[in-house]
Each structure stands twice: as C-alpha cells, then as structure tokens.
C-alpha cells in the first residue's frame, strides 16, 4: 500500500510529447490503432519509420492521414474530433455501424486513450466529471471491444493527486479494461489483472513513483 494523502514534491519526468513518444515505441508493425483526444493525438508523429501503423477513426475512417494543408480541407472528411483530416492510400470508408463493429468486435489492436483515473484492477474513468456536461462518444465501445487499451496520462492531476488509484471515484468507462498505462514518470502493465510497474522514466526512481501512486501494484522494473 502506497496511498498518499499529501501532495508530493513536483518532479520532472517525461513531457506530454515524450509520453506519446514512449508509447509509440511499443506499437508493433501492422497494428491498427484508434486514438483518443489529448496526449494520444501526438502518438502518430513518433511512430518509428520502420513500422506501419494504421489509424482508425470512429466516424468510419480506416487509414487516417495527417491534417490537410490549409485550403485542402474537405467538410466530408473529418476526424473523431470533427476536425478536417486526410486519408492515406489503402484507406477505406465504412458507416458508423460497421465502424463500431470493427471496434466492438475486437478487430483493432490497440486503443490509446487519456484518463481521469485508472484503478489497480484496470478500471478506467475518462468520460465524465460529475457536475460538468456529460458526453461519452465512442469511449465505452472502444474499451469494451479493443484487446489492448493503452492509457497515456500525467501521473498526478493538477492538484498533485494520484490518478492511479485503488478504486476509481469518477464514473467508470469500463471495468478491468486497461492493459497499459504510460505516464510522465513510468510505464505500467496490467498482467493477469495485476497492475505492474515495468519501467521508470529517466531520472525517476521506483520510490518517486510509489509516492505519487495511490494504487497497489507490483514492481517489476529491470535493475
């Protein structure tokens, strides 16, 4: 148990862009991947050049490309954030039912999401802060259907409170769905339902991580 109720001193681990870069290094050649908003949107620019990763957008695009040049936007080609986008050669369009058949049916390899909280059992909360405006989009379908759910997030919230917790206090997006967590401080895998610290960022010690984590977990960091 490493629950902390007091704010830990600020330390400097990976930047948000470096979190995306660290996650991108784990993507396997040939994966088809869905990206959520926030840090995940920075992942594509860090995919190693020797790997082909196909991007899916929940509104029916397979083979999402980069943002178009100014003036080349097409109102009929927008991404899940409703922004103009482009497609790569070999891409395909499907309707929303088929898009979510792909998602729910387990045909994506990884979905990459931000999070409000992740519990030690891999529960995810990322859709709703009570009191604010509720909206869910495709988040619950993505975590229910995708074999691997990788979260990238800051290790603590802006008040310094841990986001890796024993039990989520925010409403759940899905129960026991998260398989990896990439933060500014560390990388965790959920192995057979057990949250496991597998890597600390450069300059970060397991003790630094422990002080800023409210979840129980196993340490399996290579010496």
């Amino acid at each position, binding site marked *: 148990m490493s629950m902390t109720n007091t704010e830990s001193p600020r330390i400097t681990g990976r930047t948000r862009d470096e979190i995306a870069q660290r996650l991108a290094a784990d993507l396997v050649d040939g994966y088809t991947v869905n990206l959520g908003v926030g840090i995940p949107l920075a992942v594509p620019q860090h995919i190693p050049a020797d790997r082909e990763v196909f991007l899916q*957008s*929940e*509104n*029916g*695009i397979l083979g999402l490309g980069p943002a178009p040049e100014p*003036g080349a*936007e*097409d*109102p*009929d*080609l*927008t*991404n899940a954030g*409703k922004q*103009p986008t482009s*497609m790569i050669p070999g891409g395909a*369009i*499907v*309707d*929303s*039912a088929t*898009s*979510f*058949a792909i*998602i*729910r049916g387990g045909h994506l390899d990884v979905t990459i999401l931000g999070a409000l909280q992740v519990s030690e059992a891999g529960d995810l909360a990322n859709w*709703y802060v009570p009191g604010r*405006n*509720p*909206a*869910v*989009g*495709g*988040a*619950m*379908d993505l975590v*229910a*259907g995708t074999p691997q759910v990788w979260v990238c997030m800051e290790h603590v919230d802006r008040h310094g409170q841990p986001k890796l917790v024993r039990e989520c206090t925010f*409403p*759940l*997006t*899905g*129960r026991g769905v998260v398989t990896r967590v990439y933060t500014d401080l560390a990388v965790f895998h959920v192995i057979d339902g057990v949250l496991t610290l597998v890597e600390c960022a450069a300059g970060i010690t397991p003790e630094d991580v422990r002080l800023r984590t409210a979840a129980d977990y196993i340490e399996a960091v290579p010496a």
Partner: protein
Amino acid sequence: MNKFRTDLHEHLDAVWDGASIAVGGFGSSGRPDALLNALSDLGKKDLHLYVNNVGDDFTGIGRLVMEGRVRRLTGSFPVLPEFYDEYFAGRVELELIPQGTLAERMRAGGAGIAAFFTPSGAETMLSDGTFPASYSGGTPGELLPAKEERVFDGRAHVLEYGIKADFGLVKAQQADPKGNLRFHLSARNFNPLAAMSGRTTFVEVERLVDTGSLDPDDIHLPGVFVDHVVMTAAPIPADLPRRAASLQKG
C-alpha cells in the same frame, strides 16, 4: 416510382408533433441541415431525436434544440454547451448512450432485430439506472432505467433495443430516382443507419443522377430504405463560421 420531390415542405409536413426521428451526420459532417431547418420552418415540436451530436452551432439540431422543439435527445456526444443549459434547466431530456450502441440500435431497428446484448456501457452509470435523463428544479428528475445485464464468455453485457423511428433524415451525395444513394467519405457515418431506422425516410442530396447511372455494386444504400429525395444540400463551405453570431430562442 420516382422518389424525387420538388417541394420539400409539402412532403416533410407529414412529420407530426411528437414524432421520433433518426438523423444522420457526425457533427456537421453529413448532417441533413436543409431537412432539419425545414422542420423548424414548419413549426414542428415535441420531437424525439436520435442523433449522435447536437453539433457546435445553432444550425440543424442546434437550432431545433434552441427553439425548444426537442423533447428528448438520444445520442452520445451533444457538445453544444447551450444544449446542456437546456438539459439542466429541465427543458430537454437526454438519453446518453455509447456511440456504437446508437449506431447498432438504429441498424437493429431497421433490420427487425428487437434487441441485442453488447458489452459497451456494461457496469457503468449509463446502464445502472443512476444517470439523470432529465432535471427538474435543478435536481435530477427521471433516471435512465437500469439495463438488463447478462454475462457472456465471462464478460458483462447489457440489453439494448432496436430503434424504429417514425422518420429518418439523411444527407447523401448522390441519389437516383429509385432512391439509391451514395455518400462521400466520412459524411457517410450515421446516414445509412438513420435511413434504415426511419419508417419513412427523407434524403437531401447534392446531386440527382439518372436511373441506371449508379453501378449496382457501388450503391451504399439501396432505395428500398428511402421514400423521398430532395436536392437541397450544397457542400458545406470550408470557411463556414463554426458558431452563428445571432440566435433567436423560441
């Protein structure tokens, strides 16, 4: 049987107050704004809309909501802040459901599938009976009913019901006189599903083409799901202001 119509208002006036309507579009992409605006112009009210988003401006769904014409909205991502003002003020009800569940429910309703079990949203407040569908006096009123749960292969699923809407509103790129449709890129999204879900379906298109000019292998939605086609839609200009400056609430 030519499904092309010249007088949109004459035919769309068949929509009754209180009707349920499945609407295509994802944000403003592929949204049938001409049909939605015509509903406002015709003074329709007390509507139950099945649509993924409200959008981020006061055209289309946003206009209907802000004019007080929408009783209930079933969708996944309303977005428009003013929609939530209406919701919290008790002037519109919100049935919030996962996006994939909305798409599948529309298809199921159109396909004669009464209900289906999906893992999406199981064990969350969108299925456990705690989400407020409405507010009254600033506090939660009606709660969304708890969904029937069942475990398949060790995983929790919830029962979701097909949506058979009274009407479907759709935007397409091309239509022939039989009502066969083609969509353009990601503007396809919910449009084929809204067409399937609607007992009577209206389509606005950018281009009318002759019977036989669409290859049977290249039709995205067969005309059997379509009743009335009007040519009103123009491609949305890329420089459309994202939010209208003036708004008349009504």
